[in-house]
């Protein structure tokens, strides 16, 4: 009897304590499973750690949605949520996952690029969740932070952060800013490992065009701007001209030579991808009382429309001049004018 009891205790220890403690946690463990409902264009869903194993099981591992037409064409990458409080970028990426159906080429989307940043909110004045009404009821999206959660980072912030390639000494917390640490390191801090994993994806998948979707305070110089790696500045210039004809005024800047670690600079320099960063004005990023969704001057739907229109204009410019087997075409794409008019909810799946 005593023997059976010992066996029972050993089995209990093995099943409920030892195995969960010492085995690898699931990908993305400890973070939020965001509400993303893929549309019929999505052919595969995986995790970013597939491209860089040091990210596996960390709070920064994140889902990757792939829409492959199965036909030759360009590979386009889109990231939302590099800064998890820049909600228009996240919703734009989600709208693409839920609606886009490529007919030539391939679309790879990561809607919540920094999952660790999604887990916390920097200010009590901004919402933790954003509610979007759809024809079938509300859906909720996490309004997170700009930086990786310090608890997840695995290292204390330095007094000052200097990118390994040099440049200005920034606030120490910038070590947790994903858009300051590219190309990252496979054995670095959590934020550096995340950056490294994305660089690995861009290289291994042969990404041709890459977008990083951001927001800035409305008074910021960056608001309503496309930042382009110098090698693809002309493509962005053509897009700016075409956007203006559609009533969308975007400014244009090339990546700085001296400011390292930013996506548009390092993605473009370190891979073959044409790299772009798009910024829209988020009122909640300039004043503590700003509303990130229903501001009358800068409503969320309008900002999402700007992101989608800018992506569309750049892809149109790409298609004008690329080889025939490098076009990116879509059977379905969320129409930015309809998003501006009807709101994002009309384009969210149920």
């Amino acid at each position, binding site marked *: 009897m005593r023997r059976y009891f010992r066996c029972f205790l050993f089995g209990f220890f093995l099943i409920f304590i030892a195995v969960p403690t010492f085995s690898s946690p699931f990908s993305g463990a400890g973070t939020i499973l965001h509400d993303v409902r893929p549309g019929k264009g999505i052919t595969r869903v995986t995790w970013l750690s597939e491209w860089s194993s040091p990210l596996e099981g960390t709070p920064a591992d994140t889902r990757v949605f792939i829409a492959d037409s199965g036909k030759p064409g360009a590979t386009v990458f889109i990231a939302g949520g590099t800064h998890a409080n820049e909600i228009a970028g996240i919703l734009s990426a989600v709208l693409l996952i839920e609606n886009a159906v490529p007919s030539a080429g391939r679309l790879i989307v990561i809607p919540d690029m920094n999952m660790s940043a999604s887990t916390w909110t920097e200010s009590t004045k901004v919402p933790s969740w954003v509610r979007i009404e759809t024809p079938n009821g509300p859906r909720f999206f996490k309004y997170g932070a700009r930086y990786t959660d310090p608890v997840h980072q695995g290292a204390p912030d330095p007094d000052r952060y200097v990118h390994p390639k040099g440049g200005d000494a920034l606030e120490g917390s910038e070590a947790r800013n994903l858009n300051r640490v590219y190309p990252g390191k496979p054995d670095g801090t959590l934020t550096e490992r995340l950056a490294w994993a994305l660089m690995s994806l861009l290289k291994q998948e042969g990404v041709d065009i890459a977008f990083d979707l951001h927001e800035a305070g409305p008074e910021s*110089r960056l608001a309503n701007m496309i930042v382009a790696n110098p090698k693809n500045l*002309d493509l962005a*210039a053509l897009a*700016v001209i075409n956007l203006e004809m559609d009533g969308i*005024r975007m*400014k244009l800047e*090339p990546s700085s*030579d001296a400011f390292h670690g930013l996506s548009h600079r390092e993605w473009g320099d370190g891979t073959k991808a044409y790299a772009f960063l798009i910024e829209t004005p988020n009122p909640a990023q300039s004043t503590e009382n700003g509303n990130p969704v229903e501001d009358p001057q800068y409503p969320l739907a309008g900002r999402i429309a700007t992101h989608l229109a800018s992506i569309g204009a750049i892809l149109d410019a790409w298609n004008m001049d690329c080889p025939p087997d490098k076009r990116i075409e879509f059977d379905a794409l969320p129409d930015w004018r309809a998003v501006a008019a009807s709101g994002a909810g009309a384009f969210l799946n149920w």
Partner: protein
Amino acid sequence: MVRKHRFVARVLSVALMAGIGVLQVCAQGTVPPSLQGSFLQPGYITSAGQTSDAAIVKVLANTRLKLGFGYDIAAKPQSIAGAKTLVLVLGASNKGLGAAGLSLEQDIERVKSVIAEAQKNGVRIISMHTGGTARRGEASNQVIELCVPVSDVVVVVEGGNNDGFFTDLCEKAGVPLVEVASISAAGNVLKSLMAQQ
């Protein structure tokens, strides 16, 4: 009867005001006839202040309008050898200056030397400002004040002249000013300024 006259008078005055409005819109973006087709190829584009708007004007001129202009955002005097028209795109950009490894003062010296070369060789100058209010400010004003008086025509996109800065400078220097509503309209002006080949 009196009421009827009042009604007719009101209708006429509204029509007159609308007519004046239409005339003002028509006047906007109009190139003086004496300048139409008066600028010769080849043309060359550079910035004054390292604004990335120069890249937009280059794409507008070459990709959209097929004008085939030469381009260097940081052109030197020798760059414009053989050119008959110089397009200066106005606006100071700290990022652009940093990328070119130039201070604003150094870029102003560069632009002065390019202008001197153009004047020496009879190259006519078109100054363009397409960046709106974002490309105005103390640093941008310095390059604008340098370039406008030596220009044969100045083209400004809406917003850039909200404070009348270009209007004042052009009036003082006797330089024609063409204001347009958009960057693509600025392209149309540029095309109409160039002689047909």
